[in-house]
């Protein structure tokens, strides 16, 4: 019996080999063709346009806690790629020892900024700082706006006529690709070309002089070559008859000198008895 089984197995194996051999040799026909297909990198260079527009150029420095705002608009002038992010940088060139605080508010500066706003970060002279990125996407032709805020520090002592420089940079990114940088420089001059505002109140006992200076500025009231009075701060105390004691009645010219060289002029006329007859600012 075992011999018969062995013979059967051998026959089955032979049959399997006969079936398998053609399958192993069977060739599958293939055909292929290769083509090079072109693409191009998007042109994203020179696609950043930056505009910085002062919103309240007359108010700097605006006295204690005064805040300046600038509308910063970054426009994608490219034609293809949407920006995924815009990085803003700020450089402040200020007189030595003077510092500013700055911050960025979203939107178009239409929301009034109250004096005394506490801005988070300070920038000392000639420092370059990175502002928070503005998130995209900003499509071709689109733009983003932020409101850049500047304020004096509490210890700031900007002299009238002093010059500030403000440099804003914008760099857009498309994923890991950066577009070229745009920069706008703005010069800020503390108002000093004209005399400080002087308000006279004739026919009263005293004279109230006010000006739009800022905290920390010192002033001197000159008459001819003599310092008539001096002090500091935004408000000049009222002149009183006692202040005029020793001066005979008549018209006298005064100069109001502020630290930094700004000069305001006015004249007072008073009677010999001390009553003030007139004031011309």
């Amino acid at each position, binding site marked *: 019996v075992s011999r018969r089984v062995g013979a059967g197995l051998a026959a089955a194996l032979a049959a399997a080999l006969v079936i398998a051999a053609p399958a192993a040799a069977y060739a599958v026909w293939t055909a292929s063709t290769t083509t090079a297909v072109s*693409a191009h990198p998007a042109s994203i260079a020179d696609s950043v346009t930056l505009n910085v527009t002062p919103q309240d150029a007359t108010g700097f420095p605006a006295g204690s806690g005064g805040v300046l705002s600038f509308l910063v608009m970054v426009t994608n002038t490219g034609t293809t790629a949407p920006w*995924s992010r815009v990085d803003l940088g700020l450089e402040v060139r200020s007189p030595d020892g003077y510092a500013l605080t700055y911050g960025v508010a979203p939107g178009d500066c239409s929301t009034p900024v109250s004096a005394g706003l506490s801005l988070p970060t300070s920038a000392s002279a000639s420092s370059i700082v990175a502002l928070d990125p503005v998130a995209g996407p900003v499509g071709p032709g689109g733009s983003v706006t932020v409101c850049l805020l500047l304020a004096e520090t509490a210890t700031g002592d900007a002299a009238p006529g002093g010059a500030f420089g403000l440099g804003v940079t914008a760099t857009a990114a498309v994923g890991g690709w950066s577009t070229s940088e745009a920069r706008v420089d703005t010069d800020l001059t503390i108002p000093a070309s004209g005399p400080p505002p002087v308000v006279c109140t004739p026919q009263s006992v005293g004279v109230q002089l006010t000006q739009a200076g800022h905290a920390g500025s010192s002033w001197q009231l000159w008459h001819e070559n003599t310092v008539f009075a001096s002090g500091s701060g935004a408000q000049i105390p009222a002149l009183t008859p006692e202040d005029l004691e020793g001066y005979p009645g008549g018209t006298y010219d005064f100069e109001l000198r502020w630290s930094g060289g700004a000069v305001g002029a006015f004249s007072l006329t008073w009677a010999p008895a001390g009553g003030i007859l007139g004031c011309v600012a």
Partner: protein
Amino acid sequence: VTGVRGRRRPGLWAVLVTAALVVVAGIATSQASMAYWNSQESTSGVTLQAGTADLVVTGVDEREPELYPGASATLAIAEVANTGDVDLDLSLTFGTRPTALEAAATISAWRAGTSSCDGPPDAPSSAAAGQRIDLGRLEPTGTAYLCLGVVLAPDAGAELQDEPDWFFDVTVDGRQP
């Protein structure tokens, strides 16, 4: 009679075998000397020819898109024809030895009835460099439009901008089922 009764008659099998032997012997001995009728017919020019498996790209409409990180665009529309004799299962690959551009890209492909590639499927098959996209079977003499889309990875490196050769090596394969 008695003697005859004792012998057995030859069996039927013996008779048949003897007759067969006689016939065979007769045929064998007659080969040498016997003439036979002969008719011969021949044909010429019958050639057995192997079929072919052949795939031809008959036209490529390159869209030459401008790509940037995260961009998706139509790369090209190709028309392929099965000019062979067997069905072919089509597939597409690109970037078998990927360039930096190909390594940062994904290509999608689908078949369309017209060269406009209108109405792409919601989720066309896509593959990274070196991977295969199956595109179905194409019968002999059949043609098909292959629509190719490309997506550049959002984190594609900035160095790609300086790469001089911005192209994809696309291979269409046909394989006998």
